[in-house]
């Protein structure tokens, strides 16, 4: 995916200005930056989740396989079926484990081999062994980490090309976090992952590329997110080019 001159407005307020970078296929790209710098806003513009917010306006383009997902003839619903998303808090529906995973298949009108697809998705999300005996019990009975992996399985069931993760571990303990990170590494062999994280160690550990955003404050006190630097993760953490990146990753800012 390629972001080209992406700016996002909430009403009159410019939340993110002129962000351009590429997301390499089959790699994990982390978006880091201080609170309020627009990390999540950028992420949510990659599958048009921002469309759901009243007064949100997007300028610039986001190319997915060479096609601008904001082009007038592109349906947001189609975009979201190809570009999945996992949220900050686990968001299982109050249904059974099976019903949660099959949900996207039903929406997509996929009828064949549903059981196999559910099993495959749960295996991919490293959850199958823990839940295979109780697919019909409520998803709300799972632990937080299991619920988050269930949400990943649910997103994977419709076989997206890209998985967007919005601070997927911020509500989880370190063990559950480690499992999700291992899972990301496995998944990146087959799909592209973009993850927003406020946890620098996580970005350093678990991502291949990192984009650093920060906040600029104009004379009127309006805060706008801008892209500072994007590079392979090793390089960005070892030799940041921009002074603001260095300050942030060494803990002197934000």
């Amino acid at each position: 995916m390629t972001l080209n001159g992406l700016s996002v407005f909430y009403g009159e307020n410019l939340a993110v200005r002129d962000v351009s970078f590429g997301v390499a296929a089959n790699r994990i790209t982390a978006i880091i930056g201080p609170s309020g710098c627009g990390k999540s806003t950028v992420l949510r513009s990659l599958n048009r989740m921002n469309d759901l917010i009243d007064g949100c306006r997007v300028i610039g383009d986001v190319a997915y396989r060479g096609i601008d997902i904001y082009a007038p003839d592109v349906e947001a619903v189609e975009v979201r079926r190809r570009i999945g998303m996992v949220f900050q808090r686990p968001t299982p529906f109050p249904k059974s484990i099976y019903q949660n995973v099959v949900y996207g298949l039903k929406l997509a009108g996929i009828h064949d081999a549903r059981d196999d697809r559910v099993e495959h998705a749960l295996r991919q999300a490293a959850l199958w062994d823990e839940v295979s005996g109780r697919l019909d019990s409520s998803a709300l009975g799972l632990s937080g980490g299991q619920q988050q992996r269930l949400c990943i399985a649910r997103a994977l069931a419709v076989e997206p090309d890209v998985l967007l993760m919005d601070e997927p571990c911020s509500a989880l303990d370190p063990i559950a976090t480690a499992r999700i990170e291992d899972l990301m590494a496995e998944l990146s062999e087959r799909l592209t992952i973009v993850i927003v994280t406020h946890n620098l160690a996580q970005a350093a550990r678990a991502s291949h590329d990192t984009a650093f955003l920060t906040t600029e404050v104009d004379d009127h006190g309006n805060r706008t997110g801008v892209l500072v630097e994007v590079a392979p993760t090793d390089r960005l953490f070892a030799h940041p080019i921009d002074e603001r990146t260095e300050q942030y990753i060494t803990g002197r800012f934000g």
Partner: protein
Amino acid sequence: MTTVRTPSPSVLPAHRTDGRNRARSGRRLDRAFSGLTLTAGLTILATLVGVVLATATFAWPAFRAGGIGFFTGTTWSSQTNTFGALPMIYGTVVTAVIAIILAVPASLGVALFLTEVCPRRLRGPIVALIDLLAAIPSVVFGLVGVLAFHNVFQTVFRAITGPKANGSSLLTAGIILAFMIIPIITSIPREGIATVPGHHREASYALGATRWEVLRTAILPAGSGGITGAVMLGLGRALGETIAVALVVGSAIQITPDITQPGTTMAEIIANRFNGEGMGIERNALMGLGVVLFMITIAVNVAARVVVNRAQRRNAGT
């Protein structure tokens, strides 16, 4: 030598908030407050029990005289002292069911429009308007029905079902009732739907759901408890509504499958017939109708509670 005046010996070490009998007065206030709330609670209970006892006692002679015939009889006559409640029960149920059938889709539509479709700045004014609808006195609804719409209804009914149709009928009462309960049925699902966690909605959109699919698969199921509860509440209101129905229902003690014909309801006949002294056993019979109506509304409310609780348990996932 200083001593800390502790009102009652405390096992806790002395503290700077000790003294001035703070603990004791606090405890006294606490106890008074508990007493007050307990009294308030008991008053409600006593009222409920009192109403049941008073109406049932007063209605007893009619129940005893009529036996099962009180519930199955179709004649209501003070000349012959035969009191059969079936036409009233029939009319009550039919008008309420018509009202529910008309009001539920309309209310759900409004509730979903307000929570899911309507631009935020229009939401406030529209909600205020709907609440105003609830504030219209029921007698005004009745007058509007009888004065403004009687002829309209009659013309429309006759065009559809033939020349016998009457503007004062069970159907008219059902339609007027529908308007009266729309605000009730709208407000509760509106809150219920608004409290469907935003993340269910988002998660569902993120999986490529269309707006309708999000409504159908994520919002309606999660809001179903509130919706059912609201419908039951509306039903209770429709069953018990008196004055508006009395003005438009036609006051005919008969059981007819043709809903464009006049009929009666329990509340209607109580309001129209009850006129103080010298009524003999009809007074007791009317009170008996009150008991039956009360029992039906209690049953509806209990059923609503059960349904809502079950839905809540399902949402909680146990």
